[in-house]
């Protein structure tokens, strides 16, 4: 075999992201020295990104079964059964690093990638959601990055024609050096259209379709110094430019082929390009794949086999097709004016075999390539600093701002305010199924020809995760559940994206471990299986890592889709009910962070059993059209929730909350109004439906209390504080519009 094996130096190994130990393992497993191409492929597939060598040992704790689960983690996306032959397929993925380098294209290609994961399963993407984190908007460079990421997400989704129906956005100086861009895609497939990323049948052709292969994304994991000449770096783009138009054609062509008897397997070309897609497809099918690299269409001349195999050019898919029926399949791509080439075939030996110019250039057993990586168990420890944070008692402090000012400041914070600045740049209606778009608690899509629909949400809770990653992750799951409940939905399953710093820091590894434990526990207690996910580590570009940021995407089912006011109070005289736990606390709340500049105190209280009971009551009240409005309390606490329902409906309200008992701490009212205890909701009901609401709450065991009435021009907590409706509306409306009006475009 040529080129010849080599003995890499330490720095060469580092560039491939391989350790000395991993290299020795490769020698061991192969029984010979790999050549450069082989070593590059091993480096890519054994990288954290592809192998999950650090996180995989933890992820096995996640429960991913349930009667509704059709496909769990391990494929391109998770799949749940919606009944009546219809499947729902979804996954979330991060594109943090690319978005930090080039925000428009990084965000755009993130959306492109997650769309491919979903249509690779034969599902038509019907919704996108995005979870974003940036530094403070007072900083011009953060405003710019934020504006550009939003532009990129919108650009790709709008062009492909998939509605972006929801998301979440949070600004915190802790993300100034590392923005987070997570994108979730939800698709629908008929059961007989479900595709798998698998290669089968010796002799069957392997096709590469879509974009030509360029030198995109072949970064660190290469032998820059060894293999390429001096200008090589300049020849490699640091950024991939996506082509959503091509993706749209690819999507339509692939969906035309979903369920086609000649199609055996379909896989997108993501990280590590052809290497990972072919290796994984073959591994799943217990076969091998032989590729003739000369058959790969290239965007540039002079590309080496190394570059071809590790290119991460966007908008490409790999297909395995039944032998003799290539032309039927290729005709579909031709019609969509897409390039398709037979680049190899399925072989019996479980290995990846590559040839170029008539010579074999690489040959690697799949058990080495895919499963040979060394699972890592880096040490973890709980940093002492966490204990000190937890001991702080924000409730006992002298409040920084009076109640009224605290309330208005929260409403004017870009983290609580109106997000229309973002979502009006996203087509959230294309497809004609968006019953509730962005701006509310959960998005709702109808399912054509059926009475039921989907409710979708994505939520993160990093403030509490800084204090307690286990609790924080559970709080994110709980918030997702609450958002679904407000839409009247029962959860079906969840996906998650674990955004963390450098796992080689003991603290980060501890955070990751705790977060996964928390996720597993919450998912089990709440009965929501984890069907897909993504782990993004090393979010520490600037040297300082991010706060642990678990993001949860949840999909639920609404039995009877109808138009509802959502969070908005809709009629004067309606009664306002508070469901969920009482109590005052401030630890880890948005007000606490704003006032003290860092996150301190015990994280918000959470009782998973209670959470579930209240969620069921709310879902029943909304689903049965007994509640006129429903809104869960999260960021900013009860007072912000109340103001949001008022502003959305253009109606004031007066509510009464219990007075402090003797010996209550100094910040008691602040804790009542702005504390973020999990499990709370504000519902409004017609006085005539009150008995029904109370009946549901009793039946489900959900704490509930009549607190006030809708109406008037003020939002007031009787005897405590009151703000004019107009002031609340103005504060909220300007929270993003204000700073972004100053953004350079």
């Amino acid at each position, binding site marked *: 075999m040529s080129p010849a094996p080599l003995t890499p130096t330490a720095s060469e190994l580092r560039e491939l992201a391989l350790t000395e130990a991993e290299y020795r393992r490769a020698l061991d497993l192969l029984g010979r020295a790999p050549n450069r191409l082989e070593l590059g492929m091993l480096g890519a597939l054994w990288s954290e990104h592809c192998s999950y060598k650090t996180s995989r040992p933890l992820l096995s704790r996640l429960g991913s079964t349930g009667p509704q689960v059709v496909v769990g983690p391990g494929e391109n996306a998770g799949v749940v059964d919606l009944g009546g032959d219809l499947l729902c397929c979804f996954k979330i993925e991060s594109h943090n690093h690319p978005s930090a380098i080039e925000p428009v294209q990084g965000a755009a290609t993130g959306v492109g990638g997650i769309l491919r994961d979903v249509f690779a399963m034969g599902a038509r993407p019907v919704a996108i959601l995005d979870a974003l984190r940036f530094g403070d908007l007072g900083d011009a460079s953060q405003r710019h990055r934020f504006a550009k990421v939003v532009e990129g997400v919108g650009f790709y989704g*709008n062009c492909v024609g998939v509605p972006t129906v929801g998301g979440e956005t949070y600004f915190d100086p802790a993300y100034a050096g590392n923005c987070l861009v997570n994108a979730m895609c939800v698709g629908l497939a008929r059961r007989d259209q479900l595709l798998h990323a698998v290669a089968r049948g010796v002799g069957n052709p392997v096709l590469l379709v879509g974009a030509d292969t360029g030198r995109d994304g072949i970064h660190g994991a290469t032998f820059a110094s060894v293999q390429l000449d001096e200008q090589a770096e300049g020849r490699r783009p640091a950024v991939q430019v996506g082509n959503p138009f091509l993706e749209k054609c690819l999507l339509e062509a692939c969906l035309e082929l979903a369920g086609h008897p000649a199609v055996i397997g379909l896989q997108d070309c993501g990280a590590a390009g052809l290497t990972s897609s072919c290796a994984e497809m073959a591994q799943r099918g217990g076969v091998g794949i032989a590729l003739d690299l000369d058959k790969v269409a290239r965007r540039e001349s002079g590309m080496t086999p190394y570059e071809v195999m590790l290119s991460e050019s966007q908008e490409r898919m790999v297909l395995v097709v039944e032998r003799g029926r290539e032309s039927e399949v290729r005709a579909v791509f031709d019609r969509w004016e897409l390039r398709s080439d037979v680049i190899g075939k399925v072989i019996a030996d479980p290995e990846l075999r590559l040839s170029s110019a008539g010579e074999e250039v690489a040959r690697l057993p799949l058990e080495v390539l895919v499963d040979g990586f060394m699972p890592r168990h880096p040490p973890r420890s709980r940093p002492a600093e966490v204990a000190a944070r937890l001991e702080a008692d924000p409730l006992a402090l002298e409040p920084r701002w009076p109640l009224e000012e605290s309330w208005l400041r929260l409403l004017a914070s870009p983290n609580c305010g109106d997000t229309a600045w973002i979502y009006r740049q996203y087509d959230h209606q294309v497809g004609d199924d968006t019953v509730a778009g962005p701006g509310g608690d959960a998005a709702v899509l109808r399912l054509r020809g059926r009475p039921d629909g989907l409710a979708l949400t994505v939520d993160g809770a990093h403030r509490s995760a800084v204090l307690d990653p286990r609790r924080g992750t559970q709080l994110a799951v709980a918030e997702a559940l609450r958002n679904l409940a407000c839409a009247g939905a029962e959860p079906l399953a969840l996906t998650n994206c674990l955004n963390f710093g450098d796992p080689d820091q003991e603290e980060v590894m501890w955070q990751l471990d705790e977060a996964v434990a928390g996720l597993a526990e919450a998912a089990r207690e709440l009965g929501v299986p984890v069907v897909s996910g993504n782990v993004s580590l090393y979010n520490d570009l600037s040297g300082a890592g991010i706060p642990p940021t678990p993001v949860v995407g949840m999909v639920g089912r609404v039995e009877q889709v109808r138009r509802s006011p959502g969070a908005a109070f809709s009629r004067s005289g309606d009664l306002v009910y508070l469901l969920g736990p009482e109590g005052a606390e401030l630890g880890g709340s948005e007000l606490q962070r704003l006032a003290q500049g860092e996150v301190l105190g015990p994280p918000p209280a959470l009782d998973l059993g209670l959470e579930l009971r209240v969620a069921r009551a709310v879902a029943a009240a909304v689903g049965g059209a007994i509640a006129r409005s429903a809104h869960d309390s999260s960021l900013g606490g009860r007072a912000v929730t109340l103001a949001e329902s008022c502003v959305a409906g253009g109606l004031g309200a007066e509510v009464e909350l219990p007075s402090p008992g003797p010996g209550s701490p100094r910040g008691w009212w602040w804790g009542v109004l702005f504390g973020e205890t999990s499990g709370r909701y504000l519902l409004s009901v017609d006085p005539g439906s009150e008995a029904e609401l109370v009946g549901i709450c009793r039946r489900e065991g959900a704490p509930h209390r009549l607190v006030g009435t809708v109406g008037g021009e003020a939002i007031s907590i009787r005897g405590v504080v009151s703000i004019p409706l107009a002031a609340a509306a103005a504060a909220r409306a300007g929270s993003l519009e204000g700073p972004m009006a100053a953004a350079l475009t």
Partner: protein
Amino acid sequence: MGLRCGIAVFPGTWSERDCAHAVELAGGEPVMLWHAERDLKGSDLVILPGGFAHGDYLRAGAIARFAPLMAAVEGHAAAGGPVLGICNGFQILCEAGLLPGALLRNSCLQFRCQSTHLRVETDASPFLSGLGVGRVLEIPISHGEGRYYAPPEQLAQLEAAGRVALRYCGPGGELGDAHNPNGSLHHIAGVLNAAGNVLGMMPHPERACEPLLGSADGLPLFQAALRQLARA
């Protein structure tokens, strides 16, 4: 069986299914028309739907207008057949010269997806007959390049001939920059050809055909055209 409504599909079109649904709700029979073919498959009415035909990369609609299907659409329009261009379809009609003017990048320099109010300015078109001049419709927009422009003389002619079909307005029909989402000249949201049978509009009536989705104000446009065809 209902009247046949041909819906053009270019690579990159994305509202063909939405339009088909709207046509069905209006009582018509949708037929998909592939850009590379010349056959209108017996369509009584043709819709050029929204999307990003050919990626809209050079200019929206610039490449699509050369599609073989467009020759047939031109023939249909010349014979007086109704043609509705929605969003990208409007851009294509302008590029093809079936409608005057051009659609430029929104003046806010951002893509906009939001609800808008439209004032019906004329009923001299199959799509608008019977809607009532002055009626205000609530129909969403979703575009990055919808700023209507025509050279000054041409604009004056359009106005004089009553060929401005729809204008962005406030909920009460009032005109003003605050209600103009993209900086269109004269708040123009839609225009007609001289005969009135070709209507181009940036807003998406097919997204406003059911109260469940927020508005049913777009449905009358489809119904009006089908009604007139049925009478003919």
